[in-house]
C-alpha cells in the first residue's frame, strides 16, 4: 500500500516555513492547507490518499474554493511552479526586490507561488505576518521593509486606511494585486500609501497555478484590463464567451466532489470568467460567467457595477442574485461596514450617472461586515441570510 501523503497545516508559526521547505525538498507529494478551511478533514484525507501513483511524487496540493464555496484540491507540479516563479521574477522586474512580506495566508495559491516559492527560488527573505489579523506585527514589517514586495487582495485596501491611517510605507517597491477585481479606482490611494512601489494587476486562477497574465497598473485604464498573457501561455474565448487557457505552468489535476480530474497538455481550461481581447492585445474581463446576465433586455455585469460602487464607496461591497417581483433576474448590493445616508446617496448617484435603471440593484443592504470564506474571498452564498443587515434603499417594482 502506498505511503500516506503528508498534509501540512499552516499554523502561522515560525516552524511553518521550515516544514514547508522540507516538504518541497522531499520528492514526496504533499498537501498544504489552512488551519481552518471549512472543509471536512475526511474529504481532504480521502482525496490525497486517492492520488494515483504518478502524482504521489514531485507534486503538491492546495485547497481552493474560489468564490463558489465548493472545495477543490488542486494538484500542481513542483518543477512547473518553480519555472513560473522564475518567469514572474522577470516579468514583474523583481530583481531589485530583497524581501517579501506575507500579508495573506501562504496556503493561497497566489501567495504560495508569488511569495513563498519565489523567495525560495530567488533566495530572498520572506517575512511572515498574519496581515490585518495582527495589525501591529504587519505594521512593524511594513515599517522595516527594505525593497520589499507585497501581495494583496483588493478587499484589504479599506483596512489600510482604517488601521494605519495615513501612514506611508516607502520601503515597499512592488505591490501586487490578484484574487479578485483589480482596484483601478483606488490606484491613487495605493500610490500614496506605497510611494516607491510599482503596482501590478495579476490575473489567473488556481488551475493555472496560478498566473496567466500580468500588467503594470499604468498600462491599463480599467479594472477589467488584465494585460498580456505570460510567455508560453495561450488564451482564447470560444462562443460561450468564457476565457480559456493553456499553460505549461498549470495544475495537472484537481479533486472535487466528483473525484479526480486530470488536465491534459492540449486541453483548454475554463477560468470561469468572461472576457475577450481588446486594444494592444490586452485581454479584458467582462465578468464571471455567473455574474453576467440579462435584465429587462439590458446586459448586467456585476463586476462592472462593483467598479461603479467603488468610485464612491471605500468600504466592502458585494452583490448577490435575486429575482424581482416580476420574475426577472436581479441583484442586491450589500455594503459594509455601516453606510450613512450620505454614503448611500453617493452610491446611488454613481449608479444613476453610469448605468441604466435596469442595471441598478433591487436593494442596497447595509451590514456590519461581509461574511468571508477561509480563502479570504467574500462568501456570496451567505449574503442573502446575513444576520443584522438592513435595507438602506430599494427599487419599487
Amino acid at each position: 500500500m502506498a505511503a500516506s501523503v503528508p498534509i501540512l497545516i499552516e499554523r502561522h508559526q515560525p516552524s511553518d516555513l521550515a516544514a514547508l521547505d522540507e516538504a518541497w525538498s522531499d520528492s514526496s507529494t504533499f498537501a498544504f492547507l489552512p488551519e481552518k478551511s471549512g472543509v471536512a478533514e475526511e474529504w481532504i484525507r480521502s482525496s490525497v490518499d486517492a492520488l494515483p501513483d504518478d502524482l504521489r511524487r514531485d507534486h503538491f496540493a492546495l485547497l481552493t474554493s474560489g468564490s463558489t464555496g465548493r472545495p477543490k484540491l488542486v494538484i500542481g507540479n513542483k518543477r512547473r511552479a518553480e519555472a513560473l516563479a522564475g518567469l514572474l521574477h522577470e516579468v514583474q522586474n523583481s530583481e531589485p526586490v530583497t524581501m517579501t512580506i506575507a500579508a495573506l495566508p501562504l496556503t493561497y495559491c497566489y501567495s504560495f507561488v508569488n511569495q513563498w516559492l519565489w523567495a525560495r527560488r530567488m533566495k530572498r527573505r520572506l517575512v511572515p505576518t498574519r496581515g490585518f489579523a495582527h495589525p501591529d506585527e504587519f505594521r512593524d514589517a511594513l515599517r522595516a521593509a527594505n525593497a520589499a514586495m507585497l501581495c494583496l487582495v483588493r478587499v484589504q485596501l479599506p483596512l489600510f486606511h482604517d488601521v494605519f491611517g495615513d501612514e506611508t510605507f516607502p520601503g515597499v517597491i512592488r505591490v501586487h494585486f490578484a484574487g479578485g477585481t483589480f482596484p483601478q479606482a483606488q490606484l491613487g490611494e495605493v500610490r500614496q500609501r506605497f510611494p516607491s512601489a510599482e503596482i501590478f494587476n495579476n490575473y489567473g486562477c488556481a488551475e493555472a497555478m496560478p498566473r496567466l497574465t500580468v500588467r503594470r497598473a499604468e498600462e491599463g485604464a480599467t479594472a477589467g484590463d488584465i494585460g498580456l498573457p505570460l510567455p508560453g501561455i495561450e488564451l482564447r474565448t470560444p462562443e460561450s464567451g468564457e476565457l480559456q487557457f493553456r499553460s505549461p505552468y498549470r495544475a495537472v489535476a484537481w479533486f472535487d466532489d466528483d473525484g479526480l480530474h486530470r488536465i491534459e497538455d492540449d486541453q483548454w481550461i475554463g477560468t470561469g470568467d468572461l472576457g475577450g481581447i481588446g486594444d494592444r492585445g490586452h485581454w479584458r474581463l467582462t465578468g464571471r460567467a455567473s455574474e453576467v446576465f440579462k435584465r429587462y433586455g439590458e446586459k448586467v455585469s456585476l463586476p462592472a457595477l462593483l467598479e461603479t460602487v467603488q468610485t464612491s464607496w471605500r468600504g466592502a461591497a458585494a452583490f448577490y442574485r435575486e429575482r424581482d417581483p416580476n420574475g426577472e433576474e436581479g441583484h442586491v448590493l450589500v455594503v459594509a461596514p455601516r453606510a450613512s445616508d450620505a454614503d448611500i446617496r453617493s452610491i446611488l448617484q454613481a449608479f444613476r450617472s453610469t448605468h441604466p435603471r435596469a442595471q441598478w440593484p433591487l436593494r442596497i443592504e447595509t451590514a456590519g461586515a461581509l461574511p468571508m470564506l477561509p480563502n479570504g474571498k467574500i462568501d456570496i452564498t451567505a449574503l442573502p441570510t446575513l444576520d443584522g443587515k438592513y435595507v438602506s434603499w430599494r427599487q419599487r417594482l
Partner: protein
Amino acid sequence: MTNDRDKLRELLLDVFLLSPDEFRFDLTREEIDTWDSLGVVSLAVGIHETFGYHMSPQEATSLRGIADVMTLLSSKGFDVGQSG
C-alpha cells in the same frame, strides 16, 4: 407631521434618484434622465405604497412630468399643492 406634498417630494427624490438641489415640482419627464419605462413602474408602485392610490397603466404612461403627478393626486383628494 409630513404632509402629502413632502411625501410626494421624498418619493420622487427616491424613485428618480434626484438630488435635493436639482428637484423642482415643475420638472418635466424630459428633464429627468431616470424617468424611463422602469421608472414609470417604480413611480406607480411608489404612489401606491405612499398614497394608497393604484394608478392604471394608462395614467402612469401618460404622465408628462411632476405637475401631472400632482394634478392626478389632487384629483384623488390628496393635498399636494401646485407645481409652480
